[in-house]
């Protein structure tokens, strides 16, 4: 069976590699790394778009030139009437001539134009001007959008390439880099690079040609004015960038400093435990403060220089119009320049500085971004990467496993010095650690997690490096003492080792999907959709998702996590789309549980939900809503501020009662929790108020006392009371009232025992419940999944759906008894597996923080097991489970492995070593086979005679 699976796997891997190369040359490119020069990189990946956009830019230029020329004609021909000089009542409008240089034949008439009078000519030319403005605007719009899209595509490509490169980092590079710094590079530092890419070729082409057009225009009108303008422009282009060089240097320093800041903050956050434990907060604060000062200082220096340059630039730009008016006016007066020409020259010059300025900016940005790009590339040099070679062997790991003269060194010294080993696979090998890291190092060498500095590891005579990396990753599973979990469900984490790209041939079904694919192709991103089924069921040896769930649950139960997953399931939400069977039988199970509780005389342990009755074991808030809120504005205390809720409470006359309850609760809390230090665990556990809210509520109560006192000092007539209400001088302001109402929402009489609820109030709350439902329905916002006896409450956990009520905690042992009844009911209805499957949806949190250490280790182990590896290497992976359970799991694994697949376990001591076929004992940096005669350490089933195949030691 293993053979068949291997062959199938083989085919998949080859197909995968072929796909990568054939269907997506861009992706293969990504494997090749980054160009050293930013411009070469941009050109390589976007020349088509760049050329297209440049073409459009060039096409727009004649029209731009025409829009410059028109003002001259409007002034000269229409306003001053030069077109009508010889007493002509009409002039030609829209004469189209092809202007070519004289040596090419001068003008070629295309259209002779209309005859128009002076006003018509003025309006005609003006309208033409407007049309040109619109057309130029349209060109600009298209160019900007195309540029933006180009830039974003390149940014996407660059980010993806960088991420793909991080995945290829060699272990040493990974150790040298800080995660937060790499994340900053991908997120922030390439952002300006991406922004620049759209402009890289187009902006100089566009603005340069525009400036050149304007300059040419001025030169055509008057050579002297043109030369003058050119002179000023020349100064701007030559001097300003020189001044800006220092700016760049500072910018570079700033980038490095801010990257280090990010790295440092990341370090502190990662090590916050140690910071607290050592009381090093003042040092860390001072350290970050110092860095921030450095950043500030750099920024300030940058600003000073930047604005100085700006000042100079502006001065030069403003000088030229002065010269134009002065000298141009002189020419005009002398008749060497027409007024129209002067106006047009000034208009053209007005258009000159913005493109120039942008060009200079572009140049600065270019230098800046190039530096950034180079710094980014520095982090991703080929020597830091593992070779990418998807081809290679994909044979099962069978034959003899040989370790030949393997040396492993680390920065602080050698870990293994010349280890030798030869064992026929499959084998169950125990490596007994002597407390040094060498046993773990050998395990990692066998798992191909580290490549030895010297020597080699072969299987069946082939070096492990000959296997294709994806194939090896499939055939060897490695679980370490620190399981790495990602945010997601238990299931997501367990099938993480089964993820393979889904069939790439999937035909895009929707236009949206087609667009996604086209964009992925254009940017060298993966073509596979995340929505596809990524799970390789064949590798797990199952047919489909349900069978896989069964397999996962089976393993989890065997290694002792079944109970926990089941409990997760009880606390999980049932998505009817994913668990249709379970959702369909929930109501039946609800009735069955009720019947069981009644039959066992435990009915009083659960107070069921009843639309017409107050549930004493539920909070006041729950009793009001009688459902599970799904929007934040209805959850917890927010309820007190929800306008619809407040309106219903007001209308039902409940507000005063709830405010009074809140008052009593606040008073009691202030009385009994006063004197406990901030952040004391008792606050979290018991108080209605958190420690930092105490002063706030104290203030609310103090305000109330003051208002009451002032009210008593005045008359008590109805009129005064109303007036005071109008003035907002009620006992509480509306905000204070909301804060007080928030408190009793969490109140449960039997638990808190403050004696605040009576039957009248309970009835009033039940009555308000119905009104609230109506009001919320009428508001049409939804947000509450109401309790209905005959339907599943989707927002409530499975357990609550079964109970459909609240456990009576005032009865001793109620929770345990009820849980037992639930379990019995579920088992009787044969729903245990279905519940556990819901448990697989349990979220593990960031780095699996919602799980215990043992649970994380179990998930990591099952992740390795469902892959059915040829070789499973456990490097301390069982130790977080605790000794007893670790032993049980080890027995299970020893039973499963050794026939077709191999098992290598790093053992903390030799207590269980005798259970293995073969044992190595770490001794410093070398390994020895345990001395013969030591009964404990003698392998139970000696696979290879010592000295022959199991050749050990150096």
């Amino acid at each position, binding site marked *: 069976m293993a053979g068949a699976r291997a062959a199938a796997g083989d085919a998949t891997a080859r197909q995968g590699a072929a796909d990568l190369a054939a269907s997506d040359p861009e992706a293969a490119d990504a494997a090749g790394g980054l160009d050293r020069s930013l411009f070469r990189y941009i050109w390589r990946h976007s020349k088509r778009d760049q050329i297209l956009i440049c073409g459009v830019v060039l096409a727009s230029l004649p029209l731009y030139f025409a829009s410059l020329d028109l003002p001259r004609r409007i002034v000269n021909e229409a306003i001053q009437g030069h077109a009508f000089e010889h007493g002509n009542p009409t002039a030609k409008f829209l004469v189209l001539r092809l202007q070519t240089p004289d040596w090419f034949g001068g003008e070629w008439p295309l259209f002779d134009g209309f005859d128009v009078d002076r006003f018509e000519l003025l309006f005609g030319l003006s309208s033409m001007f407007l049309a040109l403005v619109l057309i130029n605007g349209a060109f600009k719009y298209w160019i900007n959008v195309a540029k933006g899209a180009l830039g974003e595509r390149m940014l996407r490509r660059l980010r993806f390439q960088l991420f793909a490169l991080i995945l290829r980092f060699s272990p040493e590079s990974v150790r040298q880099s800080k995660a937060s710094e790499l994340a900053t590079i991908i997120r922030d530092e390439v952002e300006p690079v991406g922004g620049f890419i759209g402009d890289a070729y187009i902006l100089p082409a566009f603005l340069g040609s525009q400036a050149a057009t304007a300059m040419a225009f001025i030169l055509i009108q008057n050579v002297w004015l043109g030369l003058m303008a050119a002179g000023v422009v020349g100064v701007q282009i030559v001097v300003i960038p020189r001044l800006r060089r220092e700016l760049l240097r500072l910018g570079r320093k700033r980038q490095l400093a801010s990257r280090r800041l990010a790295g440092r903050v990341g370090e502190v956050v990662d090590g916050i435990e140690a910071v607290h434990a050592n009381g090093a907060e003042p040092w860390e604060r001072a350290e970050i403060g110092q860095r921030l000062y450095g950043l500030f200082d750099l920024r300030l220096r940058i600003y000073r220089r930047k604005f100085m340059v700006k000042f100079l630039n502006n001065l030069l730009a403003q000088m030229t119009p002065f010269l134009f008016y002065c000298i141009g006016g002189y020419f005009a007066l002398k008749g060497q320049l027409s007024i129209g020409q002067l106006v047009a020259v000034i208009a053209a010059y007005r258009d000159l500085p913005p493109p120039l300025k942008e060009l200079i900016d572009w140049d600065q940005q270019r230098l800046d971004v190039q530096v950034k790009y180079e710094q980014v590339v520095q982090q991703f040099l080929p020597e830091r990467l593992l070779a990418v070679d998807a081809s290679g062997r994909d044979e099962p790991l069978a034959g003899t496993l040989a370790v030949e003269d393997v040396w492993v060194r680390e920065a602080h010294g050698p870990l293994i010095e010349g280890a030798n080993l030869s064992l026929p696979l499959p084998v169950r090998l125990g490596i007994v650690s002597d407390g040094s890291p060498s046993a773990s190092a050998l395990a990692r060498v066998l798992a191909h997690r580290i490549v030895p500095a010297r020597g080699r590891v072969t299987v069946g005579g082939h070096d492990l490096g000959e296997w294709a990396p994806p194939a090896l990753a499939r055939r060897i599973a490695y679980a370490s003492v620190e399981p790495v979990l990602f945010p997601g469900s238990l299931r997501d984490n367990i099938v993480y080792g089964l993820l393979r790209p889904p069939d790439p041939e999937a035909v895009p079904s929707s236009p949206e999907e087609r667009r996604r694919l086209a964009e992925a192709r254009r940017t060298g991103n993966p073509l596979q959709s995340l929505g596809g089924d990524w799970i390789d069921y064949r590798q797990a040896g199952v047919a489909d998702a349900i069978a896989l769930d069964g397999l996962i649950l089976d393993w989890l139960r065997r290694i002792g996590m079944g109970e926990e997953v089941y409990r997760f399931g009880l606390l999980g939400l049932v998505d009817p789309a994913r668990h249709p069977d379970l959702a369909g039988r929930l109501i039946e199970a609800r009735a069955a549980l009720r019947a069981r509780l009644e039959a066992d005389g435990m009915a009083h342990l659960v107070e069921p939900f009843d639309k017409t009755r107050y549930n004493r074991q539920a909070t006041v808030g729950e009793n009001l809503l009688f459902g599970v809120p799904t929007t934040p504005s209805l959850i917890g205390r927010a309820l007190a501020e929800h306008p619809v809720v407040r309106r219903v409470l007001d209308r039902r006359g409940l507000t005063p009662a709830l405010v009074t309850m809140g008052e009593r609760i606040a008073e009691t809390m202030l009385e009994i929790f006063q004197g406990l230090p901030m952040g004391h665990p*008792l606050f979290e556990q018991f108080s209605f108020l958190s420690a930092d809210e105490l002063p706030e509520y104290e203030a609310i109560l103090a305000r109330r006392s003051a208002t009451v006192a002032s009210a008593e000092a005045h008359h008590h007539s109805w009129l005064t009371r109303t007036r005071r209400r109008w003035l907002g001088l009620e006992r509480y302001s509306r905000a204070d009232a909301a804060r007080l109402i928030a408190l009793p929402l969490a109140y449960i009489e039997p638990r808190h*025992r403050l004696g605040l609820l009576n039957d009248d109030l309970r009835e009033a709350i039940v009555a308000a419940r119905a009104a609230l439902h109506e009001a919320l329905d009428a508001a049409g916002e939804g947000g509450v999944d109401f309790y209905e006896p005959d339907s599943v409450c989707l927002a409530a956990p499975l357990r609550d759906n079964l109970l459909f009520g609240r456990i009576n905690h005032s009865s*001793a042992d109620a929770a345990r008894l009820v849980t037992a009844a639930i379990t019995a009911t579920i088992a009787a209805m044969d729903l245990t597996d279905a519940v556990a499957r819901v448990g697989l949806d349990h979220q593990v949190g960031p780095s699996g923080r919602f799980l215990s250490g043992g649970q994380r280790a179990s998930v990591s182990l099952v992740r390795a097991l469902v892959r059915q590896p040829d070789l499973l290497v456990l490097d301390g992976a069982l130790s977080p489970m605790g000794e007893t359970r670790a032993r049980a799991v080890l027995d299970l694994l020893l039973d499963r492995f050794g026939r077709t697949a191999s098992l290598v376990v790093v053992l903390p001591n030799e207590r269980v070593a005798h259970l293995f076929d073969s044992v190595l004992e770490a001794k410093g940096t070398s390994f020895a086979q345990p001395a013969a005669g030591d009964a404990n350490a003698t392998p139970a089933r000696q696979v290879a005679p010592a000295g022959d195949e199991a050749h050990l030691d150096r």
Partner: protein
Amino acid sequence: MTLETEVQSLRQVPMFREIDPPRLKLLAFTSERVHFAPDQKFFDQGDAADAAYLILDGEAAVTIEGPGGATIRLALLGANALVGEMGILADQPRSATVTAVQATTALRIDRRVFLELLTQFPQIAIAVMRELAHRLEMTNQQLAQRRAV
């Protein structure tokens, strides 16, 4: 019954007599009121000591398992009796079994919370010490008497 009545009951316990009312109220508030059916066990001999119980209403029997499995009743506790407090202070397994004789209501004082209060409020700690010293004194006297006999 509300918190106030529980505070009254706590006040009857010698160990808590000297403690300020707000502190007693905190102790009551952080404890749970639980009902036991007749013959329902508070805890078993040998169980981990996780809570002390103040009987508010009803009766509970303290028993130990004698030689040969016979049950020996040591005491019958009524209202305002505190039971299991030595276990949570000494962090030792239960030395006896406590069973409700009739329907009984008790205030369950959680061990962790109780120790938290002891560390937080020296007044409570001193009151407990005083009571323990008092009991030791009594034991010493009894021992002396027995030796004399």
